């Protein structure tokens, strides 16, 4: 009851009455990071190129849709490592330039939210649940979340790199997406 009565007010504040519209992502302030462990050492690399289509209203999370595309060739850590990770045995950025997450369901989860959906990397799909938080800021909001994948499921690190004693199987994908409001042209 309370939720339904609050929704129009929140929607008014957040998006001038438009309840379903795409968040306008400020890429300069947003980051997509992947973190793993190499010989027990936590290492973090960044994907410099990504696009996020977020149709999200915190008052009505269930109507939300999230789609994130990551340019696999934009992996950045150190020149020697980058060539290898963008290469055939890892992300194979030539043949599979995009990794993609498409949500099938967005819902409230405790203090935050979660989006479940399909992650496709290197021609392999997997179901993931992506918990995230949203906090309004500067007319828009900040989406932050993280989820862990098994790199071997997506054939990331083939052949000699399958050994998980050197590079762990668990890879955490972390994102921080900053929106400055709703895109005018995307209003429905």
């Amino acid at each position, binding site marked *: 009851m309370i939720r339904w009565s609050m929704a129009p007010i929140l929607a008014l504040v957040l998006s001038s009455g438009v309840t379903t519209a795409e968040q306008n992502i400020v890429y300069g302030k947003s980051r997509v990071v992947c973190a793993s462990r*190499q*010989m*027990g*050492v*936590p*290492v*973090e690399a960044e994907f410099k190129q990504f696009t996020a289509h977020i149709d999200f209203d915190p008052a009505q999370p269930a109507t939300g849709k999230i789609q994130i595309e990551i340019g696999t060739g934009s992996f950045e*850590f*150190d020149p*020697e*490592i980058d*060539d*290898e990770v963008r290469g055939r045995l890892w992300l194979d950025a030539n043949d599979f330039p995009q990794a993609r997450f498409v949500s099938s369901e967005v819902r409230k989860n405790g203090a935050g939210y979660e989006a479940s959906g399909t992650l496709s990397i290197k021609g392999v799909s997997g179901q993931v649940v992506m918990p995230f938080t949203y906090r309004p800021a500067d007319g828009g909001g900040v989406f932050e979340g993280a989820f862990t994948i098994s790199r071997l499921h997506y054939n990331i690190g083939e052949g*000699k*790199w399958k*050994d998980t*004693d*050197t*590079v762990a199987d668990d890879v955490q994908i972390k994102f921080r997406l900053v929106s400055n409001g709703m895109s005018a042209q995307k209003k429905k």
Partner: protein
Amino acid sequence: MDSQTVSYTRTAVTLHWLIFALIACGFALGHYMVGLPLSPMKLRYISWHKWLGVTIFMLAIVRIVWRATHRVPAPPAAMPAWQKAAAGASHIMLYILIVAIPLSGWLYSSAAGVQTVYFGVIPLPDILSKDKPLSGFLKEVHGILNNGLAILVAIHVVAALKHYFIDRDSVLKRMLPFLQPREPR
């Protein structure tokens, strides 16, 4: 002269040779691994090299504490003053380098964005944030200090052999207790 000042203690002799052996391994491994193409083995070698460095650093600290708290044998009275001064200076530089080289390697790794985790279990402080130009500079420093150490070790060895074969004094035997003394000429 009493025996205390004639020879180094067993602790000092053990530390000397242990640190030498570990540095020789770390030096050889470091030179070998940097030329390898990227592979899981190379990543292992890099980790082992770092663990060796951390071990050497800790042993070097123990050794310096020992040195500061113990009397060491005096150089032979017959040694010319310039040789005594040169020996003293090169020993101080060797002590500095066995601490500075692991330190430079640790800082280089930190600036390169890779924390050092001893044996993959104990994380060392990661005091520098990722900084490409700084990591390049520290890599250079690590290499230069190592070349300096290699030169100093060569001088150290030549000097020790000179003491044994030419001066025929007890200097080398103090670090090699099983060595047969040479008959004075």
